[in-house]
């Protein structure tokens, strides 16, 4: 387990003491406590069960769980297929998810069939939560709600005749502003939880320590919202002037919440075009961490070119200025004092 983002629950003889179809509807008190703890920490919860869908819908209504599970998979098919569908649909890596089932056979079965997935009993989950001191930001608390908003986006997209028209109708607003001390927890979260679009040159600890050090460095934060909801702070860049008119990118992380087409590029380019980060040249090192190749593609999309003799990627200001951004994202810039 890398970091716990999602818990996929079994129902019969896990959340429930007995079997739903046999009329055993008593909720295990430990399950109830754990689900509430997960809610408070903004860890997503989903349900994978072999009960019939209509029975599950009734149970969800009956137990007041309509806001609890971001996805429910209910059918008679194999459990692993349901778990896989949940991971795929939510875009969560198996390394960041746990499957909770009181039946050791089911746990072992999932472990064999889904590489990287953590199979836990409720006692395992309880022990994990007791030892986890991760920060809980506003964005974290809103995470389940954000996933529901994302599902509404996907439904809107599926019913729209043209994807670009749909994106334009979303009124996507990206705001780029200077980092403030109160962003520290969210910055840590972004640098820790983001895998695909994380420069990863510095350790998280080092990256965080440098944010508050005095000096010439600049840190910018990107926030995003649309008609479906507020995604909060989704991107961060930390740059240090190199004394030669250029700037070195120390840290860069962009959350996977920006999955719609072109938004990661809009966010990266927006961060670098802010008045605080306007330099002749942008340099960065890229370290492959096993999953962050999309960031390498993003850097290429923004015009960064490899400089083999320097082991760096470099982007000139002229090239940055010429990047065409999607017209469905509106980028606003704020200074310390207000908008500009």
């Amino acid at each position, binding site marked *: 387990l890398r970091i716990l983002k999602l818990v996929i629950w079994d129902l019969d003889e896990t959340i429930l003491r007995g079997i739903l179809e046999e009329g055993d509807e008593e909720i295990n008190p430990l399950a109830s406590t754990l689900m509430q703890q997960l809610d408070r920490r903004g860890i997503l919860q989903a349900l994978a069960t072999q009960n019939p869908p209509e029975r599950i819908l009734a149970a969800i209504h009956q137990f007041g769980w309509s806001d609890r599970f971001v996805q429910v998979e209910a059918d008679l098919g194999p459990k692993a297929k349901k778990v896989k569908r949940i991971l795929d649909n939510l875009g969560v890596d198996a390394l960041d998810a746990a499957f909770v089932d009181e039946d050791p056979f089911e746990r072992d079965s999932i472990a064999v069939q889904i590489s990287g997935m953590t199979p836990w009993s409720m006692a395992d989950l309880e022990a994990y939560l007791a030892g986890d001191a991760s920060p809980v930001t506003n964005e974290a608390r809103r995470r389940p709600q954000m996933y529901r908003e994302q599902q509404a986006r996907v439904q809107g997209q599926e019913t729209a005749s043209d994807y670009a028209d749909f994106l334009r109708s979303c009124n996507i607003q990206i705001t780029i502003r200077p980092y403030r001390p109160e962003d520290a927890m969210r910055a840590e979260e972004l640098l820790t939880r983001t895998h695909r*679009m994380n420069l990863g040159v510095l350790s998280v600890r080092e990256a965080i320590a440098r944010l508050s050090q005095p000096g010439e460095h600049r840190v910018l934060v990107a926030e995003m919202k649309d008609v479906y909801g507020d995604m909060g702070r989704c991107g961060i860049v930390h740059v240090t002037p190199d004394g030669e008119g250029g700037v070195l990118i120390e840290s860069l992380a962009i959350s996977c919440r920006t999955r719609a*087409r072109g938004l990661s590029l809009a966010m990266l380019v927006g961060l670098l075009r802010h008045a605080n980060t306007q330099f002749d040249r942008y340099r960065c090192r890229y370290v*492959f961490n096993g999953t962050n190749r999309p960031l*390498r*593609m*993003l850097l*290429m*999309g923004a015009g960064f070119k490899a400089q083999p003799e320097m082991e760096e990627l470099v982007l000139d200001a002229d090239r940055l200025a010429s*990047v*065409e951004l999607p017209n469905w994202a509106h980028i606003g810039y704020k200074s310390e004092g207000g908008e500009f």
Partner: protein
Amino acid sequence: MLSKSSDLAGLDRRAQVVQKKVIELASLSLGRDLTTSAMDELLYGTQTGFDSIALMEFILRLEEEFGLSIPDEDLDPDVFGSISTIVAYVLHRLDKDVPSAHI
């Protein structure tokens, strides 16, 4: 020099096969049909081009299809800017430095 679409029209059958396959793979990753008339269309940093995930998917498909390993140093915006520059790159790699490559 990188080839333009007009140059490719006169090229050998191998180049045509590469071009056809690159168009097919790019269309798959973009989710829309490209044609030979789109050879010089910019493929990212535009409204209709790749986003970073689709571009990665496309490059993985290219690697698999042609038996290439595309190093990070080659991920250059001028090389992967359009179908014609990508075709030129693939032909160059097939010719020069990848003995195991195949089409």
